[in-house]
């Protein structure tokens, strides 16, 4: 009879073991090598380069002097940067939650065996394929009080109707959210719809037998099951939030005033238009630090700690 005591895992290293591990995984390691190089040179390299430049006084061309935290002091005294930072929080929150809510509603409604499902789906998805360079202009026109919705409603006889968010400092950021929703809700819908289609049909039968109202099933049973899809959609949308630039440029150019400025635009303007590489990279570094501190724990728990599967 065998009885075995449990010991702490020991790091054993015999020559043969290493040989087999290497021999078996060599092709895999080799296949990952180009990516590893890219990660090292491009991603990590560029990040470090960016961080380094933020401690210099570079203007048009990078130079490698050292001015300490001077750029950061300027950055945090800069109205526009502070507005950008708060704008991205507003936009991010509303855009992600809005896309998820609208996407979920669209997915649920499309999932009701409607006729012309394909048509609806395409209509909701097509904005994702359009570049913002000009669709931004279309939105700008539509939201402009003198041209679009407000004029239309007033022309119909409702003289007091006012919809001037686009030109209102306090509300302008929400028009960016509206156009953002238009662009991103369709993709969210597709992801959630995929999730809905994957739900076991027995669940529906069970809910019917129990006499649970449909909306209740969606909120209490289906929604929790869609968790992975919601996470994926959130991740995809979040990458868009951080990179938000084109939309703002096309619709408001950061205005009225600096009401709709966002960090990526701050970085872009300072790097390429204002010949202020140092301040631009300082802003980029702050963005980087923010993203890393929010995401690193999640990425670590989700992807790094569990070492793949055992094979």
């Amino acid at each position, binding site marked *: 009879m065998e009885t075995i005591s449990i010991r702490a895992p020991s790091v054993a290293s015999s020559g043969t073991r290493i040989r087999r591990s290497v021999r078996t995984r060599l092709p895999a390691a080799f296949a990952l090598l180009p990516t590893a190089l890219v990660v090292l040179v491009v991603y990590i390299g560029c990040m470090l380069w960016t961080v380094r430049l933020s401690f210099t006084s570079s203007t048009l061309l990078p130079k490698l002097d050292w001015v300490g935290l001077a750029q950061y002091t300027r950055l945090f005294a800069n109205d526009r940067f502070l507005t950008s930072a708060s704008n991205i929080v507003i936009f991010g929150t509303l855009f992600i939650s809005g896309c998820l809510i609208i996407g979920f509603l669209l997915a649920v409604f499309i999932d009701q065996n409607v006729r012309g499902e394909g048509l609806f789906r395409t209509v909701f998805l097509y904005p994702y394929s359009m570049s913002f360079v000009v669709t931004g202009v279309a939105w700008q026109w539509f939201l402009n009080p003198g041209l679009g919705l407000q004029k239309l409603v007033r022309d119909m006889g409702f003289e007091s109707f006012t919809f001037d968010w686009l*030109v209102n400092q306090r509300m302008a950021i929400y028009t960016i959210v509206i156009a953002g929703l238009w662009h991103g809700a369709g993709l969210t819908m597709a992801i959630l719809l995929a999730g809905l289609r994957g739900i076991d049909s027995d669940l529906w039968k069970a809910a019917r037998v129990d006499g649970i109202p449909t909306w209740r099933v969606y909120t209490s049973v289906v929604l929790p099951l869609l968790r992975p899809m919601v996470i994926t959609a959130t991740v995809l949308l979040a990458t868009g939030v951080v990179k938000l630039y084109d939309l703002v440029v096309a619709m*408001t150019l950061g205005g009225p005033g600096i009401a709709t400025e966002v960090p990526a635009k701050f970085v872009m303007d300072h790097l390429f238009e204002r010949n202020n590489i140092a301040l631009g990279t300082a802003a980029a570094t702050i963005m980087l630090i923010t993203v890393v501190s929010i995401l690193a724990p999640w990425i670590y728990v989700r992807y790094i700690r569990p070492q793949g599967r055992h094979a």
Partner: protein
Amino acid sequence: MRLKTRVSAYTLSIALVWSSGALAQQMKAEVLHWWTSAGESASVKVFADQFTKAGGTWVDNAIAGGANARTAGINRIVGGNPPTMMQFNTGKQFDELVSNDLVRDVDAQAKAGKWRELMPKPIVDATVRQGKFYAVPVNIHGQNWMFYNTKVFADAGLEPPKTFPELIASGEKLKAKGIIPLALGGQPTWEHNLFRAVMVGHGGADMFRQLYGTRKPDVVKNPKFKETVEIFGKMRGLVDPGSPGRNWNDATALVITNKAAMHFNGDWAKGEFIAAGQTAGKEYGCTVVGQEPKLVIGGDVFVFPQTKDKTALATQDKLIQVLTDPTSQVEFNKKKGSIPVRMDVDVSSMDVCAQKSHSILKDPANQVESMEILSPPNFSGAMQDAVTQFWNNPNMTADAFIEKIVNAMRDAG
């Protein structure tokens, strides 16, 4: 420097490829610029045709948006694969290319062509670094023009204003008649452009230079400065609520379609009037508002990236000849909406606005350097941020605005 050897090795290999090609390719010039609209394309074609006539091959590389084009161009110059010539605006945009020895000096050609005598001093100063020409100016844009709708003014029984206080007074009258007094592209650039027009028109050329050039905070202590800022502040009431975010040409369209009376812009806005079939002096007029007309001028220049290749040098020399030739100057600027950079050419064939421009600039006292010439981009950028905040926030006081200007001066160093 290793980068440099790299660069020249690369140019050399390209040169080898070229010289092995057909003879016609010997004078092949790749020109990088951001003149992409129909009117601009027509103007650049003048140079291209002249160059072709002179036996060269013009390879056109147009990239929309100055920032995009400059980024691409600078990347290529630094990356060792430069175009033969590249557009910049007058001003500090190419300073570091000069100090890093990446562009060629063209002082020999300038001396031969007497550029220093023939061109307005602000333009010369904007192009000369360490006593040498490093770029070829090709045109002069007036930035503080006011375009107005003649019919609207006639109907209202008003004369186009000569000063800014007058402008505000007539603006209020026009507003009462349901006309948009001032059409403005509500984007930071154009708001800032308007501010500069007020600054030079009301505050005067010296104040303008102090603000954008020397950037000493003392300037704001001048009571005239605050007065100017307040006038600018009052003009917030003269634009329509749809202004924010609007493109400048949509603002021009408001004047064209009789919806608005006045529009401040550079002389490039003529292109929109022309495209709508209107003629200067008839449907619309152009004027410079201010006690004495001071014209803020800037323009476009071309720089010539360094090369050791003899053929390439000859090509660049030929290009310089073409750019400064009097005939091509007139033809180019007719299409571009600007005026020739040489004050010695005959402008009688150009439109009334251009002629007005030319006559104003005849007196060197009326020539005012543009912000692009006076300020480094980080200061003009910071100013733009300040201006757009003030313009779009009716509750912001002139003093708060002035404080932001002082901060901008401090930050830009």
